[in-house]
């Protein structure tokens, strides 16, 4: 277990601070907008991050700071299955995405690669662009430091918590294969 965590620490550990500025987006933000296909010739997070959101917010990639929070409406991440989308968001330094709801494939991808995501309609309705948010990922508590309001995000099902606790799907798969004796522990 310790061993596996260390293997995946560079990509999956929540190393970024979970306090930062809110970037607010609307409903149905699709993965073509998150990272246009014209940049999909690489899988490098830093490279992808340079173009994150550029078709709807050309200034985003240059101004977003490590720890910042994305806030969006319904069906965030709809469209293409490209995992380059959550990778670009994570690479840009975003510590957590809060939305009313996520498109299914994006939801899976974020969990699988260890990009924290939370569903919390109350926070989405109340938070303004530029507010400072403090997010406790372990408890799902979201605090708007600017306005003093706080919100509780929905909790995850047990089996998804297990993937998150393992540090993402690759680590969870290693555990599964080790348990089955198909990988040395």
């Amino acid at each position: 277990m310790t061993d596996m965590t260390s293997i995946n620490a560079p990509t999956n550990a929540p190393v970024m601070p979970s306090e930062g500025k809110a970037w607010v987006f609307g409903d149905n933000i699709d993965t073509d907008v998150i990272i246009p296909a014209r940049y999909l010739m690489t899988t490098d997070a830093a490279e992808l991050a340079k173009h994150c959101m550029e078709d709807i917010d050309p200034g985003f990639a240059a101004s977003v700071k490590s720890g910042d929070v994305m806030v969006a409406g319904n069906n965030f991440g709809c469209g293409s299955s490209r995992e380059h989308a959550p990778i670009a968001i994570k690479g840009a330094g975003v510590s957590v995405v809060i939305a009313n709801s996520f498109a299914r494939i994006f939801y899976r991808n974020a969990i699988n690669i260890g990009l924290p995501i939370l569903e919390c309609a109350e926070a989405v309705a109340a938070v303004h662009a530029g507010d400072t948010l403090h997010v406790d990922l372990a408890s799902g508590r979201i605090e708007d430091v600017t306005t003093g309001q706080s919100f509780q995000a929905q909790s995850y099902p047990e089996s998804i918590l297990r993937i998150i606790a393992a540090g993402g799907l690759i680590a969870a798969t290693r555990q599964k294969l080790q348990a089955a004796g198909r990988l040395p522990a």
Partner: protein
Amino acid sequence: MTWGRRNAFRRGFNRQPAHMGSTMAEKMLARHAGKSRVEAGEMIDVRVDIVMANDITGPLAIKEFRKIGIDRVFDPKKVIFVSSHFTPAKDIQSAQQATILRKFAREQETVYFEIGRGGIEHVVLPEQGLVVPGQVVVGGDSHTCTYGALGCYATGVGSTDVAAALATGEIWMRVPPTIKFVYHGERPPWVSAKDMILQTIGRIGVEGGRGAVMEFTGEAVGGLSMEGRLTMANMAIEAGADAGLFPVDEKTLAYVQERAKWPYEVVNSDSDAKYMQVYEFDVSTMEPMVACPYDPANIKPVSQVDKDPLDQVFIGSCTNNRIEDLRIVADLLRGRTIHPDIRCIIIPGSVDVERQALREGLLEVFQQAEAVIAPPGCGPCLGGYMGVLGPGERAVSTSNRNFRGRMGHRDAEVYLASPAVAAASALLGRVASPAEIAREGVTA
């Protein structure tokens, strides 16, 4: 099936599945999870029959697969890679990505479709009988839902899911509820499967199927060819659905029998299956539809779309580039010339489709009409190359997405339509109904 009746079976009666109906999705997932039945919302591990990835999602999946530390994929015969998106290589970086895919396919001895031998995965896999009824298929491409036309449970996933499936032959899933769509009546002339799915998405919205299975039924669906069903299932993801399924009927079996590379099983929904919701449509009142920028649910009847000049018409993509689509386009273009201000790009979906189009003389018709024919693949559908739109350009496309920036510049406009509407628009230089071709006196 009412909730009351379902609750009556809660206390340990779950070994009497005969009394409770299941949808085809639930049945296929239960069989692949080693259970007698599953219910919507349940978290399960599902055995997969096919794992697919392309030249964009594959390299990332391979990178993640290597991290798992296992040497071999779970079963190389069940792993399919297709070079389709940025091939023939559009630049050095995409050449490198395609090489990662190609080398891994050779090393692991998986199924692999190189350019000149394949095309777009969602055209190739059904056509080659590599996906068949009753299977569970996962693919690193959101339009993997296309295969649901054959009555298999097919769903798009990301690259890390593909990596885990390559290693274990399994995937975690939350059993989705099913929404039933019933289509009644007879289609008027020029109303195609594309128009039916655009109407459906327009009605339920891009989030209307989120986290659910769309099951397409009714006599109007029975009347569709397999090509038409593939078109409809393809766009289930545009309503946010996990899968788009068609019941298996005689047409499915006729299509599958002559090409199946795997044993198959007919799995249809029980008459008392439980649906989250049921929508009914009367196709006899439908018109050809166009989805306007920047949302596939932003639909209008073709007659109500503005008549501003277009710059490009793209006839292709995994939605509409099968032989039936190309025949319709050829019928409209035969002996006519594309509008002088239009660049018309036609891309057959696979090498087999291209070969058939060649045999039937369709490619010659396209060329004489002054369309350009590009090699089988995704082409400009995702704005990578082969017809990228510039600032402010307007295009009609037979593909499935018109999001901002999807086919090029953020200010370019994409109008999604059927092959017939696209061909008519190419001739008239504006969004046009195929019915106008004769009326406008565009002479043969």
